[in-house]
């Protein structure tokens, strides 16, 4: 991991990797979306509204995965003083918040016809909303930091502590009676029929690759900004 501690080495890998992730992601999303919207059968109970699944699930996965990334970066920053950890965490925060909001929005749109309500304060929805607020708090804290692209130690600790919400979101439907259904895809298999399931693999992987590309782009932008500022400072000093 410390091989990437050198920003120059990181950039040598990140630069060619970004377009592959971005275009690969777009391609997979396109395949999954076309299949999910036009070629898969409707659900026996929900009818056509089931198709929102192909965005809702990847959005939830990336909202939670994003914060997991922020927590890991926080640990790497606090324990190993990894120089890129703060930059990575800051790069993850905005897209993570975006996907969390997308998950809440698509869930709400699905909830109206399926459940008969836009919003209910059940365990799953409330804990996911808390995640969105955690993201807002993290972004606010990070932008108050004066850390040249990275985040302060307080922000890193906040990222680490906030990760406690991730297992709560995951377990909420098991611990409490909730309106939200339990997990369909578990270790023991999937209760989503194969004919409805396969585009979900495409969109989940596709959005994940796109997320990776966005994070790499934002990290590169941060590093470039640091270099610009360093150069300006040098020029001002001369």
């Amino acid at each position, binding site marked *: 991991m410390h091989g990437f501690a050198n920003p120059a080495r990181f950039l040598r890998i990140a630069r060619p990797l970004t377009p592959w992730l971005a275009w690969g992601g777009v391609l997979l999303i396109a395949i999954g979306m076309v299949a999910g919207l036009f070629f898969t059968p409707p659900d026996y109970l*929900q009818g056509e509204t089931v198709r929102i699944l192909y965005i809702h699930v990847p959005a939830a996965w990336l909202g939670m995965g994003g914060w997991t990334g922020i927590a890991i970066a926080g640990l790497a920053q606090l*324990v190993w003083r990894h120089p890129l950890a703060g930059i990575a965490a800051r790069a993850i925060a905005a897209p993570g918040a975006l996907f969390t909001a997308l998950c809440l929005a698509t869930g709400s749109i699905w909830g109206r016809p399926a459940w*008969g309500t836009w919003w*209910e304060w059940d365990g799953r929805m409330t804990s996911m909303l808390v995640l969105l607020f955690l993201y807002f708090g993290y972004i606010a804290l990070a932008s108050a930091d004066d850390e040249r692209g990275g985040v302060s130690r307080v922000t890193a600790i906040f990222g680490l502590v906030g990760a406690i919400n991730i297992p709560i979101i995951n377990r909420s439907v098991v611990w409490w009676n909730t309106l939200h259904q339990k997990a*369909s895809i578990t270790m023991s298999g999937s209760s989503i029929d194969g004919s409805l399931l396969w585009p979900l693999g495409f969109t989940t992987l596709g959005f994940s690759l796109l997320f990776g590309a966005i994070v790499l782009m934002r990290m590169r932008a941060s590093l470039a900004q640091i270099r610009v500022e360093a150069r300006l400072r040098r020029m001002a000093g001369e």
Partner: protein
Amino acid sequence: MKAKHQRLTLALVALAALIGATLLAMSALKDQAAYFYSPGDAKKANVAPGQAIRLGGMVEKGSIARDPDGVTIRFALTDGRASVPVRFKGIVPDLFKEDSGAVAEGRFDASGTFVADNILAKHDERYMPPQIAGDMHKTGRVE
């Protein structure tokens, strides 16, 4: 001990304490954070008539009946342990049907019937195309 290891130990201890505290809090919240009472829970908790609660369970097979006025619907919610008769005046969501999950918001009346102001349908974690569902259990209501 190197500083790096000291920090790692500190972080792990703090994390373990945090997880422990959260698990304790969550288990204490177990009942309060529940979104609805199941019929069995409601019986056990002795919910007073008139107290606003949510009651959730499966709509009992063959229990849905319509009153002559055409807008009042009666059915029973069950969790296998207990069954509660429910009365609701209004329009139910599309997914509301027999042998499927539902949540009723309302209160018990003096006779033990649950009078609902609102009905929400619960979807379970199974998703499948209509043909397969039709083969598995003839629900009769396939869209």
